[in-house]
């Protein structure tokens, strides 16, 4: 191992390693325990203890890495992996301010989600396995964040996909969960293949996988425009798949089939964050391709508005949150498209914390009311579960962009970044999206928690403390973390400048006031529609019934995909299967077997079983060969 660096860097590579080791320990001990105890529940707590210890250690080491980055500015460290001819491929990690921020987010959210899961998953059949995959998932995501070369990153990227597949399909006995896991895996796989092709293109052009070397070569013009543009576009498609951008968003709402804490993890810290992080990480070469940046921005904008509108009509609480996640990811992509890495990463963190909070809150609600997810069957829950209600309100208000909660600051920063890029049309549409996102947040917070309690919910109660303590921690952070955007002290110049020294902290009062007005207007509108019912939701629907129906059916995109699969993919598959059966199987494989059999029928009479027949044949053959040789020699 080469090392030109400090303690913090070594701490950094240990962080994912611990979780990976935790995964192995849990899996192996599960196996061994299985031999000695038929009733594994006695040892059940072992798994969460191992995985939580690992992630807690990761979280503590994160502070070490953070200190190191603050003092020395990070760096990279690597060791040899493969040497193929002249090409050297290394394992390595790279730490800078962006990756250290992500490190903090992932370890922190994973820690809280795992603690919460002890309560949520209590008594589950595969309790230990759940924590094992959690550890694997965290390890994969942390590796992805730290990887300093694209091949290593891709390796982690696939492991993240595997982790999400296992977690979404955790209750695989349920058919819908198995289907959802498959859908998530296959949908993101399309992006993954594109990403791999993009990486290989870059490797072919530069001869290295190392990210910073690729940046240097690209910046000095060492890659032709065509290759650069196509590889960046392919990498972006990979990010679109993982970050559920339109048109790859279909897997994320279905991912709700997994346990709710899994949704919290996938939506907040791991998986979907990977795509945004990848684009942020590759920003120096994205900036070399303005056309691709435009595509990033447009895809982000479409996703933002489009998912926001769907979040507004869904009646399943987890689906509302899922579409809200897609929408916010769109917003981050949009911001990355304008070059605002700092703002996008900040929103990623703020959104991650708030969305983890909302999902864990939703899980807490579902836990107490028999896994009911339809918001119209809930109501007045704030009397029954006050802590969940208050924390849920804080999370929702933060995402709706109410000052002084974190979401307000991050959204403001995003809008500012779009404004500075001079995209006024995009800014106007984004403001519409801001209104939408505040409105659906109002809806999902007001309908279940306020109003009158339906009869069947009167037995509901607050969840156990192991579940609400993480909620409170997340709520406090969700309220407070926004102040990081401000220049708090002489050494901390505000988030934007901290991430990118060329930026400076600034305010645009009119934009800020506009976004507050929009958020408040949305809240008041939501209030009057969903609580006071002074504005009838029915009338609004009747205003454009077919449009409403379109949104309710998710713009028919799932149906379109289903149609394509049924009519094109399956039809082609049937054709191939027919070819296989008729030509390959019947003619080629069975045909050759039959021809051998037929010829054997004819020739087996040669086998007399008498020794002298064989001897004579051998003799005659030898004589024949001798004569042939003699003739040929002359």
């Amino acid at each position, binding site marked *: 191992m080469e090392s030109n660096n400090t303690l913090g860097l070594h701490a950094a590579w240990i962080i994912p390693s611990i979780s990976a080791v935790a995964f192995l320990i849990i899996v192996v001990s599960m196996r061994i325990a299985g031999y000695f105890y038929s009733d594994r529940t006695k040892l059940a707590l072992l798994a969460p203890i191992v995985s939580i210890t690992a992630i807690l250690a990761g979280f503590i080491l994160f502070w070490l890495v953070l200190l190191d980055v603050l003092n020395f500015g990070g760096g990279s460290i690597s060791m040899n992996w493969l040497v193929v001819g002249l090409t050297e491929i290394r394992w390595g990690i790279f730490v800078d301010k962006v990756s250290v921020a992500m490190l903090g987010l992932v370890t922190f959210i994973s820690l809280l989600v795992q603690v919460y899961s002890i309560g949520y998953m209590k008594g589950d059949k595969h309790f230990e396995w759940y924590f094992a995959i959690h550890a694997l998932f965290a390890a994969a995501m942390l590796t992805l964040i730290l990887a300093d070369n694209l091949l290593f990153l891709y390796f982690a990227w696939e492991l993240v996909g595997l982790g999400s597949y296992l977690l979404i399909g955790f209750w695989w006995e349920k058919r819908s969960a198995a289907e959802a896991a498959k859908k998530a895996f296959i949908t993101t796989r399309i992006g993954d293949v594109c990403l791999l092709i993009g990486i290989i293109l870059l490797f072919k052009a530069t001869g290295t996988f190392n990210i910073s070397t690729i940046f240097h070569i690209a910046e000095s013009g060492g890659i032709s425009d065509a290759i650069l543009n196509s590889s960046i576009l392919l990498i972006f498609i990979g990010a679109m798949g993982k970050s559920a951008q339109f048109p790859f968003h279909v897997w994320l709402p279905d991912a709700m089939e997994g346990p709710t804490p899994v949704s919290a993890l996938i939506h907040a810290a791991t998986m979907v964050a990977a795509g945004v992080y990848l684009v942020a990480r590759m920003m120096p070469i994205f900036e070399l391709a303005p056309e691709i940046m435009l595509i990033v921005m447009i895809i982000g904008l479409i996703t933002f508005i489009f998912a926001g509108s769907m979040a507004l009509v869904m009646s399943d609480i987890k689906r509302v949150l899922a579409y809200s996640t897609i929408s916010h990811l769109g917003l981050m992509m949009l911001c990355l498209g304008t070059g605002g890495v700092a703002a996008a990463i900040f929103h990623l963190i703020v959104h991650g914390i708030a969305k983890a909070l909302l999902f864990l809150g939703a899980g807490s609600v579902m836990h107490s009311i028999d896994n009911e997810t339809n918001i119209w069957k809930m109501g007045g829950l704030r009397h029954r579960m006050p802590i969940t209600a208050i924390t849920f309100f804080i999370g929702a208000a933060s995402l709706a962009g109410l000052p002084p909660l974190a979401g307000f600051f991050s959204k403001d920063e995003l809008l500012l970044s779009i404004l500075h890029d001079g995209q006024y049309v995009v800014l106007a549409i984004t403001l519409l999206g801001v209104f939408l996102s505040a409105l659906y947040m109002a809806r999902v917070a007001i309908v279940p928690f306020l109003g009158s309690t339906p009869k069947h919910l009167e037995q509901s109660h607050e969840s156990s403390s192991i579940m609400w303590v993480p909620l409170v921690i997340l709520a406090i952070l969700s309220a407070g973390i926004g102040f990081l955007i401000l220049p708090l002290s002489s050494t901390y110049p505000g988030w934007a400048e901290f991430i990118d020294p060329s930026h400076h902290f600034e305010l645009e009062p009119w934009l800020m006031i506009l976004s507050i007005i929009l958020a408040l207007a949305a809240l008041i509108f939501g209030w009057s529609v969903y609580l006071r019912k002074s504005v009838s939701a029915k009338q609004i629907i009747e205003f454009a019934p077919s449009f409403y129906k379109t949104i309710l059916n998710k713009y028919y995109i799932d149906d379109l995909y289903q149609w394509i699969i049924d009519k094109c993919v399956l039809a082609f598959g049937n054709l191939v299967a027919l070819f296989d059966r008729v030509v390959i199987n019947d003619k080629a494989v069975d045909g050759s077997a039959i021809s051998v059999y037929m010829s054997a029928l004819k020739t087996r009479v040669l*086998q007399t*079983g008498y*020794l002298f027949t064989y001897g004579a044949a051998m003799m005659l053959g030898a004589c024949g060969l001798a004569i042939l040789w003699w003739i040929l020699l002359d």
Partner: protein
Amino acid sequence: MIELTHFQVLSGLLFAIGLYGVLARRNAILVLMSIELMLNAVNINLIGYSIFMNASESHRALGHVLIIFVITIAAAELALAIAIILRLYRNKSSINTDDINIMRW
């Protein structure tokens, strides 16, 4: 005066007798003995050539070396074949090769 032809005739006769034994005899032991005859016919042929060929000392020695190989292999083969015949006798109470036709179609 003995010449190469004498060796060849002797060798050819021995080989023919051996061949006849292998093809015509039904007793497995006799078949084996006939095979030994054929091998020794080859040995005599080799010896004849190594003596009468116009070749250097080392090339002549090659004939002798080959014979030693043939003898060795014949011994090894015989040990194996006798063992097989013994097992056959135990199982079938016969060493008539016509009775050993279970592998036939």
